[in-house]
């Protein structure tokens, strides 16, 4: 049974994590800022991975780590909005932007949280295979949390639909999830550490 945690954030000023992952919707500018913050935070994970080789690899990894999330934001979320609109789901562009920003910010925040551990592991693990495994695990964890946030937000918008329409929307969400996983994996595969870079 779900416990309620109404006062998880007891301080008057919510933490960065709470602000980035908050389900509240804001204006377009604020949502874009949230999305940008998520992408920026994701690049910290890339920097940590790049510490394995140093130099230009720092930039390559930072860009590629953010690019996986950016690709889902640019290519995936608008497509999801169009498909949901086709089945008359009650979603608005602003609500989709908010859901997307929240999910990408969550994924980016998790990647940033994993960055210290990733830096230690990337620098100290000798085996390229083990380093690649750890990298994939981190990306999967963050991507999974981001996807969970997105699907939760979208499903919350579908509460009032008929069961038949909700089924269609859930099927679309499932297909979108597969697409998002493949797309992010395709972009993240550009990370040199996943190609066995020492």
């Amino acid at each position: 049974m779900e416990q309620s945690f109404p006062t998880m954030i007891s301080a008057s000023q919510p933490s960065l994590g709470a602000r980035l992952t908050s389900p509240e919707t804001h204006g377009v500018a604020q949502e874009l800022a949230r999305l940008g913050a998520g992408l920026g935070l994701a690049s910290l994970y890339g920097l940590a991975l790049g510490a394995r080789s140093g130099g230009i690899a720092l930039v390559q990894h930072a860009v590629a780590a953010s690019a996986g999330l950016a690709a889902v934001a640019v290519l995936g979320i608008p497509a999801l909005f169009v498909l949901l609109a086709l089945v008359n789901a009650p979603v608005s562009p602003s609500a989709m932007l908010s859901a997307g920003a929240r999910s990408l910010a969550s994924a980016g925040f998790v990647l940033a949280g994993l960055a210290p551990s990733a830096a230690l592991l990337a620098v100290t693990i000798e085996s390229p295979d083990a380093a690649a495994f750890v990298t994939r695990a981190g990306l999967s964890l963050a991507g999974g949390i981001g996807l969970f946030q997105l699907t939760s937000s979208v499903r919350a918008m579908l509460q009032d639909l008929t069961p038949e329409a909700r089924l269609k929307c859930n099927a679309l969400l499932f297909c979108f999830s597969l697409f998002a996983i493949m797309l992010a994996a395709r972009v993240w595969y550009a990370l040199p550490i996943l190609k066995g870079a020492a």
Partner: protein
Amino acid sequence: MNSQVLSVFDELLRSPRAIAERSRAGGDLRPLFVASLAALVLGAGVFGATLATSRGGLQLLYSGVKLPLAMVATMLLVVPAFHAIAAGLGRPLSFSGMIGLTLAAAGRGALVLVALSPLTWLCFDRGLTYHPGVLLAVACYGLAGVAALDLVLKGVGYDVRGFAIVSLFGCVLFITGGQTAWMLRPFLGRPSDVSVPFFRHRESSFWDAVQQSSRSSFGLYKLSESFPDAEGRERSKPGPTMENAYESR
């Protein structure tokens, strides 16, 4: 302040829920920080030194210093990940609360290690050898880990989402903690070593060691150092090679 710290020691053992709620509520967490850190350093130090009784001498001091170091370093590395995972799964906690919760959990685990130290010492004193000693240490860490994660679970919520957060955090903790401890080894000391090194030179990784141990448990040993002409091949005949005979934890 001192009496508050002492009462936190007691609470760490008896009332993990109260500690978890205090961490969630925020406020003045200094007594909790101090007591937890003291428990962590003391507990891990005592247990580290106990592990080294199999070797004795300078290893006692080294392990007594390195085990708390490994635990504190691991905490520093994993707290951001815990904070982010909890926030990402809808249970955001203030960062100071998260530090308090993690530190308290580590302190509780370390107190469990203190409780297990006499038994561990007795086992080594009665002639427990190196490899069973490693297994005993792993079992002790496991028990301490369960006590620590119980406190964390009370902090994030005893439900499906709480379990998911703690499980994911546990994975990060296991990998990061394993590698940190691997870098700071030896804690028991190789029986074959003439002198006692503070750090072992860098070789492979925690992950490689886990893989190698998994293969070894199925009787598959890699032929490399002992048979240089058989690089990369595996044999199924049981028996340690240079590679795993000199492995140290």
